[in-house]
Each structure stands twice: as C-alpha cells, then as structure tokens.
C-alpha cells in the first residue's frame, strides 16, 4: 500500500533530517516572525488608534470571500485567473505541508487512496501554479500594461516562487524516477518529468544524489522566501488579508470619517505619518501594486499627477523610510519630509474627484478617498488651494451656495411655474424636495428643474421646497476638506429642516442625496427616508401610480453618477424608468459600479482646470458615441448635465449625441 514516507532518500549521515530540516525552517520562521513584528509594530505604534475589531463574524466572512476566494480579484478575467492560480496553488501547497507534518508526527493517515489523492491534488496544483506563473510573466514582461510597474522587486518574488515550486517538482520527480512505483500515474505531471530524468540514463544512485541536492535546494529556497518575505512584494500575502479583515464596517461608503481630534478635543490635521491611523498606514503596506485602482481612476486617465496606486506606494515608502525616526522622536521636531506637501504633493490631492472607483476596485479594500480627504483637510486649514476653490468656499460660507448669489434668489426658477410650489417651511408636505445648488442657480439647468417640478405636480405629489432656507448640503464641501464649513452648512440646513413637517426628503442631486442620507445627524431625519427622485418614481412605477402616455422610442445609454451608483447602489431604478419611457437602453462598457466619473465631484467643479490630456467628461462622451445607434446620453445628476453638455461641444459630437437628464425623458413621456 502506498504511504507517505518522511524524508525519503535523505541520508542520516549528519543526524536525523528532521533536526536540520526543522532547524533551518524554524530559524527562518523566527526571522520571519521577528521581521513581521518589526513591520507591524511600525504602523501599529506610529498610527493613531482606530477601532476595527467589532463584528468579527462579518470580518471573517469578508476574509473568506475576498482574501481566500478572492472574488474581487476574479472580477477581472486575465489577472484574476492568473492570481487565483498562483494563490490557490500556494494555499494547497501550504495545506500539503501541514498535512504532511500531521502525518509524520501525529496521525499517520497519508496512506492508500488518501495518499494517492493527496499526491494527485498537489501534482495538479503544481501545474496550475505554473500556468499562473507563465501568465504572470507574460503579463508583466510582454504585455506590460501601464498599471504594472516594472521593477526588480516583482521579478525577485516571481522568480523565487517559481524556483520553490519547480524545486519541489524536481524533488518529487527524481524520487519517482528512482522508485518507479506502480501508482506513479497518480502524480501524472511529476511522473512525466520523472521520465525525463530516466531518459538521461542516469543510475539510481546518481538520481538519488540529484534528489538530495534538489531537496536541499528546495529547503533553502523555501527558507529564503520566509526570511525575505517582509521586505519583498510577497508581504501582501500577510497584509492583504489583514487589510481585508480590518476593512471599514462602521459606516457606509458614502460616509467619510469625521475630522480626527486631539486628546484635548481640538481638530487634528494630518501633517505627518503619525496623524494617520494604524489602519491608514496598513493600507499602504497592503497595497499589492496591482494597479487596478489606477486603471479605474479618471484623474489618472486625464493625465493629472494622481495615481491612487502611487499614492499608496508613496505613503509606504515614507513609512518605511521615516517611520523609525518618527517613533524615536516622539512628538519632537521631525527632520523627515512632510507627509502633506512633500511625500504627497498638493496637486495630487487636489486632482481627486472622490469618485470612489479606486475603492471599489481595490482587491484588498484600501480606502484611498478617506485618507486623501484627511490630507486635504490639512491643505484647507493652511489655505493651500487655488483661487477658484477659495472663492467657491468663501461663497458657500457667505451665501450658502457656490455661485456667490444671494440666497434670496435661490428659488427664482420657481417663479415662472404655473402652479406655485409649497413652502415646506410654512406648510406640512409629504415630500420635501432638496433642490441643490446647481439645479437652483445654474441658468442652463433652470429648464430641467422646472420640468422636475412639473412632473412632480403632474403626479400629484404633495411636495414643497425650502426656498431661501436651503443651503448647499455640503457633500463636496466636506470632500474638499473644509470640515468646519461643512458643519456650518449642516447646522443651517438642520435648523431649517427641524422646523418643517415632512415624511421623506427627495433630491435631484446625487451629491446632496449622499450626504443627507449618509452623513447628516440622525435626529435631522428621525427615521424618515432620503430618496433620489429616481427611487421615488421607480416605486410609483411599480405601484402603478406612474404611467406613461407616450413611448419615446429613443435608443439611449445611461451614465451612473458616482454618488448615486457606486456610493449608494442605486443602479436599477433609473434603468427601469428609462425602459418604461419606451426607450431602448444600451450599456457602455463601463457601467454600473464601474461607471466612469464625469470629473466634477469632490469639489473639482469648483477648482481651476488642470492641464489634462483628456477631460474625464470627454472620455465618457467618446465612450458613448462608440455605441451603435445611441443618440442620447441619459444622466440623473445636474452636474452631469453641465459637464456632459460641455463635453459634447468640446469633442465636436454635439450633433451626434444629446445629453438629457432622465427627468426630461419622463416629462416628455408623461406630458
């Protein structure tokens, strides 16, 4: 009966092989543990505290789903398959080793059919690994996608793991060549390689000697992996799962962490690595440099200096370079480059649209946006921003809108409506419509805002607006990093809302929607829902309260606004409405949670335009015009209308593509 034999073919000349094999690996493990401890203690001790221990069952579940099964990695086919092949092969090898150890010291069970299956699985995964390794090499060195860095540290890791696995294969196959057992075909791949050894005509003794040499080499290369893991790119096998385990659970994606505070209760601004939390530092250590975030980043695509991947790498480099010095100095003077401004340049921070694509894409759950906003807060505190943003913020502070117009004319668009809109401050309403700045003040959007009101009126909604009582909801003010101003705006809006009687808030602007829904203090809403108008109309469609009289018959495509789709998961409601108006919907390649950003978010719409190769909005228009027959781009955000109507002009596609707010379709199909 076949059975696993420990240390087959290893002579006892220098004592029992267990001793030096375990000795070497034990030593390597000690070095590994010590170095890991050093690495962990760096971010753990340097970073501020943050609670990420709660809800263990969800964390464990995430660990299984994203670190072991790796569903996010798999969401991109080639790199997904490649990584799964490598990672799972290593899981299997790890388990193989563990089982072998159990077998030799505790329960002898690797015999008979169990053993044969054991061998078969290990053998097959060797093949799987090699396929993965070839795919990896082909991708990094031949395909060379832009998102991957070509640096020796990646080659080192790839070569090392290939050497280990090929070494293991060589050991097994030389053994098979000597033993030539009848079950050899249970390890088909190793047996084939064994045929190769046999074909050399070497004597059994010679093969035995080779086996010994290969075995020793395999042992040492495995030890090398252990010893160098903490400084190599393989570290991600530890930090990646850790980061997934500790990922954010306490708040929805659309809610930023509040401004950190010092122990004295003063606002704390991020100026050095010390001011980030241990989790934010861990993020940087966990980055695998896979570049998925960079690929998805509209700011990077536009040619701005921002790459979310490089951001993480920069923080990590600084952590490894300056971390010890900072730890030693306590709170003393730092002779290390400033985190904000030097390690991460101002222009990088200001390039982000906070679209969240990076966060959505990252296989190890890195939270780029939160860290970036934390650093922006420091820039704002120091007044380091361009003059347009400065003016917008000053206007928001003074008038409650970025347009710098009087709040008294906020509802001027409503003056010409046939049926006046209720003043929600004076009468109770069922739906309180929070109109938002762009829809209220931008003269190019007035028509759309009026149509929205007309649709609501036609449907017999009992709704009202806040007139001059409304202020900018503050979503982007917060994301710009002006937390104090955000608080003030929340305070003003909350004060008005607390005096109104309503059952739900409806918004037309996804940005207002996000912050009202996810960030406003609980007591303001008091359990009442915040809905995007598409959600409400979709409900009415389902209940039969909304019926269309015309079929429009357009062929359209739809661009999900970041703060409606990715941030709040509203994907289906607008699509059902589009179909209900009698339009045919053709999706763009980047849609749903991968929808591309228009470039306006995170306060970018208030900032000076950077020198870019291609504006994000223009890239999006080019994506849309590639679709056959599509003449209309449908959006559900007033800023999108502004951005894309501009972009169809600048790309010269004005005659080819119309940009419509969904409410315009609904209005047309209804009235």
């Amino acid at each position, binding site marked *: 009966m076949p059975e696993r034999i420990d240390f087959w073919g290893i002579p006892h000349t220098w004592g029992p092989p267990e001793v030096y094999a375990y000795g070497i690996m034990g030593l390597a493990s000690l070095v590994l543990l010590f170095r890991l401890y050093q690495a962990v203690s760096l971010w753990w001790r340097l970073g501020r505290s943050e609670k990420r221990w709660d809800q263990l069952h969800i964390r464990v579940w995430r660990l299984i789903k994203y670190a072991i099964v790796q569903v996010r990695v798999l969401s991109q086919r080639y790199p997904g398959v490649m990584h799964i092949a490598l990672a799972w092969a290593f899981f299997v090898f790890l388990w193989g080793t563990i089982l072998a150890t159990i077998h030799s010291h505790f329960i002898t069970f690797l015999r008979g059919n169990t053993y044969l299956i054991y061998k078969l699985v290990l053998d097959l995964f060797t093949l799987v690994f090699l396929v993965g390794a070839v795919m990896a090499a082909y991708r990094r060195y031949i395909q060379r996608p832009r998102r991957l860095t070509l640096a020796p540290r990646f080659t080192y890791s790839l070569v090392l793991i290939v050497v280990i696995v090929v070494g293991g294969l060589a050991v097994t196959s030389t053994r098979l060549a000597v033993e030539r057992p009848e079950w050899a075909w249970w390890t088909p791949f190793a047996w084939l390689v064994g045929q190769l050894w046999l074909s050399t005509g070497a004597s059994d003794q010679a093969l035995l000697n080779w086996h010994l040499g290969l075995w020793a080499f395999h042992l040492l290369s495995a030890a090398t992996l252990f010893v160098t893991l903490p400084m190599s790119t393989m570290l991600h096998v530890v930090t990646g799962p850790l980061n997934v385990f500790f990922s954010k659970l306490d708040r929805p994606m659309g809610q930023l962490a509040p401004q950190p505070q010092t122990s004295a209760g003063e606002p704390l601004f991020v100026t050095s690595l010390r001011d980030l939390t241990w989790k934010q530092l861990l993020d940087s250590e966990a980055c695998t440099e896979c570049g998925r975030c960079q690929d998805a980043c509209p700011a990077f695509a536009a040619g701005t200096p921002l790459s979310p991947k490089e951001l993480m790498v920069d923080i990590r480099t600084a952590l490894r370079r300056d971390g010890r010095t900072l730890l030693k100095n306590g709170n003393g003077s730092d002779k290390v480059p400033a985190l904000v401004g030097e390690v991460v340049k101002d222009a990088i921070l200001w390039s982000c649209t906070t679209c969240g694509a990076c966060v959505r894409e990252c296989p190890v759950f890195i939270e780029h946006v939160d860290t970036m906003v934390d650093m922006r807060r420091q820039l704002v505190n120091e007044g380091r921003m361009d003059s347009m943003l400065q003016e917008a913020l000053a206007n928001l502070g003074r008038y409650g809108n970025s347009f710098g117009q009087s709040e008294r004319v906020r509802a001027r668009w409503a003056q010409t409506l046939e049926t006046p809109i209720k003043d929600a401050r004076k009468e109770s309403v069922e739906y309180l419509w929070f109109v938002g700045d762009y829809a209220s003040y931008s003269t190019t959007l007035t028509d759309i805002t009026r149509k929205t009101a007309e649709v609501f009126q036609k449907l017999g909604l009992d709704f009202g607006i806040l007139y001059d009582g409304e202020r900018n909801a503050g979503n982007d003010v917060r994301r710009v990093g002006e937390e104090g101003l955000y608080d003030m705006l929340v305070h003003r809006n909350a004060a008005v809302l607390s005096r109104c009687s309503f059952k739900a808030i409806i918004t037309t602007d996804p940005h207002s929607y996000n912050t009202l829904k996810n960030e406003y203090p609980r007591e303001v809403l008091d359990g009442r829902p915040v809905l995007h108008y598409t959600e409400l109309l979709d409900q009415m469609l389902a209940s039969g309260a909304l019926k269309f009289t015309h079929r429009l018959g357009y062929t359209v495509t739809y661009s999900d606004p970041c703060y409606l789709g990715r941030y709040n998961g509203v994907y289906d409601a607008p699509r059902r409405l589009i179909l209900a108006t009698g339009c045919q919907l053709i999706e763009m390649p980047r849609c749903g949670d991968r929808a591309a950003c228009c470039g306006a978010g995170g306060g970018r719409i208030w900032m000076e335009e950077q020198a870019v190769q291609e504006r994000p909005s223009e890239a999006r228009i080019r994506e849309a015009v590639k679709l056959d027959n599509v003449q209309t781009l449908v959006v559900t955000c007033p800023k999108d209308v502004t951005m894309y109507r501009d972009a169809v002009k*600048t790309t010269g596609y004005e005659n080819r593509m119309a940009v419509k707010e969904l409410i315009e379709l609904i209005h047309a199909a209804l009235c």
Partner: protein
Amino acid sequence: MSQDIYVIIEHLRGQIADISYVLCAAARQMAAASGGNVVGLLLGHNVKDLAQDVAVDRVLAVDDPLLANFVPDVYQQVLANLISASAPRAVLFGDTSIGAELAGALSVQLGLPLVSYCRNVRADDGRLTYVSQLCGGKVMVEGELPAPTALVAMVPGGYQAEQGKSTQPPPVETVAPPALAAGRITLKQYIEPESGDVDISKEAILVSVGRGIQNADNIELVRELAEAIGGVVSASRPVVDQGWLPTTRLVGKSGKRVKPRLYLALGISGAPEHAEAITDSQTIIAVNTDASAPIFDIARYGTTLDLLDLVPVLTEKVRQAKQ
C-alpha cells in the same frame, strides 16, 4: 473767491490722460452755469506745450524739476497754494491713482468738502448738483455741490472725452512754484508692464468670440475689428480649447474675470461659466443669431444678425469713423 472751475490736467510720461478731457467737459458745463472760467492746472517739468487740445480757457502751468513725475506730497504742496490763493468754485480731479489721493489730502489740508465717484455735474437754475455713482454703479446719489469751494473726483462715463477737447490751444500762463522741497515720498523708478500677452482683465475694450465664429480662419475677421476699435480679442472656452486663441484670452470661470468698458460678445451664448466673469463690464453688446440666448439677459444692446455678416461691415465703419 471766484466762480472759476479748476481742472487738474493729469498726464503721465508726456501724455495727457483721457480722464483730463472728461474733466474739461464737465468743467465747461459747470463754468457756463457759474459764470466763471475753466482753468487747467498743469504741474510738471517742461510741460508748457503739453496741453494743446484741452478745452479750457487758460492753463496755469507750474514748472519745476521736482514736479517732473507725480509724487503725491510735492504735488499736494503746489496745489494747496494755488487753490487757497484763488478759492475757485470747484476743483476737478480724476478719481484715479493720481487724482484721488490729491483730492483727499487737499480736502483735509484746506478744510474743503470732497465729492467722489462723481459722474455728472448738473446745473439747475444756477445751482450746481453733483451726481455720483456708488456701490459699483448700482446706486446713484445726487445733492447740491458744496459751496463755496468743492473738490470733485470724477469717474468716466458721464461725459465724452470729445467734449473736453478743443482745436484751439489755450493760453498758457507759467506760474513760479513755491519753494519746493522733496518730501517723504520719492519716486525710484518706473517699471514697464510685462511684455508677453495682454492681460485681458485690464483691457478697456474686449472683442470676445465664441463658438459662433465656426472656424479658425474667421478669427482674423474679429482681430481686424478689435484692431480697428483699439481693443483686444478674447474668447469663450470652446474657442480656446480648439487652440484658435491662447488660454491667456479665456474669459470665464476657468479663465479671467474681465471689467472692460465695452465687451462685445460675438457668437457667445452666455453660459453661466462665461457670464459670471463679464458682469463687471460697463457695457455688453451681444451679437448672436439666437434671440433667446442668455447673453441677451446681461447685455445692454444686442442684435441677432449673423456675426460673419456683421463683423466685416462693422470693421469698415469703425475705420471710417476713426478717420
């Protein structure tokens, strides 16, 4: 005490400033009502022949090397003497970087009332009334011009420079300056404006083009027009994006805020990103084929002609008018 109207003739590096003619125009009207003469005060060095075309009854020229360039405290000494000696009905200054500070200082030094931001002076049965613009021109105020002597700082807009010009050189009387001493302010040097592209935020006349221009070749038409009126070409973003004009010429949210006296908007729709930056213009004239374009909400005058039809004709007419 006299009923004369004094006018400070501003000049800079050998050139009479435009505002001086506006002052003369106002002064003539005032003198007609008060029954006095218009007297131009010309301070400088070797400036006797500078005031050839100002419409005044006579010029009092004070010549001294120390007055060669405008230095506030030295000029103030000279003017204080002249004004207190003859106590005219009014002294007109330009509300400029020369006139404004002289007027303020003299007002306190001589205890004379000062009216600023004055656009017009009206004569109602012999009484003089000032009309000033406050709040950036959003509000007008008027009242009796203080007597017996008032200092008035005037802004352009109420009179045309032409009205203050004369073809007859006025008699020039040179007055000896008082014993002058350099004061606590000294001029060190003049620094020329940076060459390079023009700064559209400082230009007085902008001929601005939008997408209505259709293609790069047509820009030339507009350039000719701008040249004819003595203005500069600016643009909306699509035009700059196409590379037809440099970014330095961009008006709007992503470009510059402008405040010219005349903003001629050719084929510009008046999107808010553009419109917000031109609201400080004194007069906007829009040419746009679409009668409902928002630009007409902020323009003072408009026409719905095709700009390609209008511009060449307009250029020709402007050229003729200039001759």
